[in-house]
């Protein structure tokens, strides 16, 4: 299967629902990496992101008949992944897993071209990000990592722009405080 396949998402969804299950591989290839950075940002590691993306793709297949707007499969898949990420964070909280434990393999692998000091600041920032609430972290990741505008984030998550701004501004303050604690 090839993600450069010109078939639209809607056509593939209809084909899969019509019994051609193998066509789902096109959607898998098309979206496997698109939201990986979001999931890694939310969960703090590439491994956790991979599990989340895999679960979301399987869950999307299970519920494909519920996808009321197949042309908007990508947005629908994002919501499934988002729920999965929030659920894992809630579970971690229940189990008392410290954010730092999950942050060890945060998306900041060793890079020879990055100064040690900068790498350390990145690590500290990633740890601080994991201490934000899931909602604060999400808006931060979507805006500053994924580069979306508040309006685009509102479209994806269903939240209003003022509430997103409020979350973000609290996140800025909290990050500043956390960074000062850790540096």
């Amino acid at each position, binding site marked *: 299967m090839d993600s450069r396949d010109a078939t639209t998402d809607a056509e593939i969804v209809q084909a899969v629902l*019509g*019994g051609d299950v193998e066509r789902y591989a096109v959607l898998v290839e098309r979206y496997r990496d698109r939201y990986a950075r979001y999931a890694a940002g939310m969960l703090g590691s590439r491994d956790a992101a991979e599990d989340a993306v895999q679960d979301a793709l399987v869950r999307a297949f299970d519920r494909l*008949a519920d996808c009321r707007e197949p042309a908007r499969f990508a947005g629908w898949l994002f919501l499934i992944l988002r729920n999965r990420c929030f659920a894992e964070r809630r579970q971690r909280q229940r189990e008392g897993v410290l954010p730092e434990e999950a942050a060890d393999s945060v*998306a900041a692998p060793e890079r020879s071209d990055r100064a040690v000091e900068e790498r350390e600041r990145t690590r500290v920032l990633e740890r601080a990000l994991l201490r934000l609430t899931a909602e604060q972290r999400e808006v931060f990741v979507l805006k*500053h990592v994924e580069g979306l505008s508040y309006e685009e984030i509102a479209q994806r998550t269903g939240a209003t722009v003022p509430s997103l701004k409020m979350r973000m501004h609290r996140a*800025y303050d909290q990050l500043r405080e956390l960074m000062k604690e850790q540096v």
Partner: protein
Amino acid sequence: MTKTYHPEVKRLLDGELTLAELAPELRAEGEEALRLMRVLDRAPVTLSAELDHRVMATVRQRARSPAWRVWRWLSAPREVELRLRVPRWTVWGGALAAAAALALLLTRSPAPVPSDAVAAQREVVFVRFVLYAPGAKRVTVAGTFNQWDQNAAPLVPAGTGGVWTTTLAVPTGQHQYAFVVDGRRWVADPAAPAVDDGFGRRNSIIAVTTQGARTL
């Protein structure tokens, strides 16, 4: 010393202001905030190549399960949600209202209840039929609900991917049906169970109730 950012610095972080637009006394704080953002890791995250295989292996397994087939069939028609149910009181109420209106307008005695109003009491359910038939020129569906007329219910292509679909008003009850591809090839619905029709063909079966359509 406060650890919260000044509101104008937050606007800077939001991209609504530039550093030069900040008041001079806020620039140091603004620079500090921007330094924080600069170290943020925005590198793409690539997942392992094995992920595709794992997902598809699970998907194939799920697709073989009867539960998924039933769920797919049961769920798909709900996208339409155009179930037509005409309660008896509505029919009679509508007929009486029409009769009263006629009486007022024409100063005649009330009109008789239209004969088609009685027919409207029969319950029908809108059922969506879908067939993946790439390369087909024409697809229709024929069954007990349209007296096996293979020209009565054509499907239309949903895009260019080979998926054909139509939504039909089907009377409640059990029905057998099959798709007719290009006017000559009879194809059972892969999403529904089928029975031998005694003539070497397979007919699909659905039960249409007021709760929706389901496979047997």
